[in-house]
């Protein structure tokens, strides 16, 4: 129950912030504050690769063989698709994963410190067959790799 203890108070706070945001009182910070601090709310709203990229990094990417993306060719279940991204690039500050065929393109974005090894593993949902795009931010530039993952309907899941 620890997880929900401050919920009602918090919802009030959030509602207030939303309202203030609408009124323009909080201005630019308004929408971001309504969600977890630092969470890139606009980037997660985007429905295309280009828009997500623009919101997240504001610059184009270049495809690089220094970025390694590991995904299954055929997902055993679209609800749980193991994805891992690694790179030999130096000075990595973030790694993001896009799934353009999902309702919202950006799936996850990881901020690394200078101590963090430039590799991440996660499990994502995929609504249907789609490319998966790994974006690596290093030295202020964006590098990418992409692969297609086929998502089929389960036969025994009903």
């Amino acid at each position: 129950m620890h997880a929900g203890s401050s919920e009602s108070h918090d919802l009030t706070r959030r509602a207030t912030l939303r309202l203030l945001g609408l009124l323009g009182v909080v201005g630019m910070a308004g929408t971001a504050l309504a969600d977890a601090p630092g969470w890139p709310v606009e980037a997660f709203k985007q429905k295309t690769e280009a828009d997500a990229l623009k919101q997240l990094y504001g610059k184009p990417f270049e495809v690089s063989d220094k970025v390694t993306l590991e995904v299954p060719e055929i997902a055993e279940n679209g609800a749980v698709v193991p994805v891992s991204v690694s790179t030999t690039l130096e000075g990595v500050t973030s790694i993001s994963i896009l799934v353009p065929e999902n309702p919202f393109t950006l799936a996850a974005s990881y901020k690394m410190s200078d101590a963090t090894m430039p590799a991440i593993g996660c499990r994502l949902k995929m609504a249907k067959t789609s490319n998966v795009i790994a974006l690596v931010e290093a030295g202020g530039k964006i590098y990418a790799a992409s692969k297609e993952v086929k998502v089929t309907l389960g036969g025994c899941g009903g």
Partner: protein
Amino acid sequence: MASTIRVRAQANGPTTDVQALIQHPMDSGFVKDSDGNLVPPHYIETVTFEHAGKIVLTSNWGPAVSKDPYTKFSFKGGAKGDVLNVTWVDNLGKTDTVAAKIA
């Protein structure tokens, strides 16, 4: 109540390997329940991993991250017995945190 966060952090020479599993529905807002009503979105937005006062990883997640989400990464530093603080916050403002020992 047991923690919603399970962490396996292992010191491995100069780096520490971290795997974490969080118990969370990660409802996307696109799925209907058995009565045909949309289950409202309920998903973790951020997870932070903090070691020795420094955040070594911030995960920003959308609803496309799987239920009971998993994270795997490594960082330089960290020794056996050190504490790794892991905290998540979701879109409803709920949160949980755990102080895991590096093995």
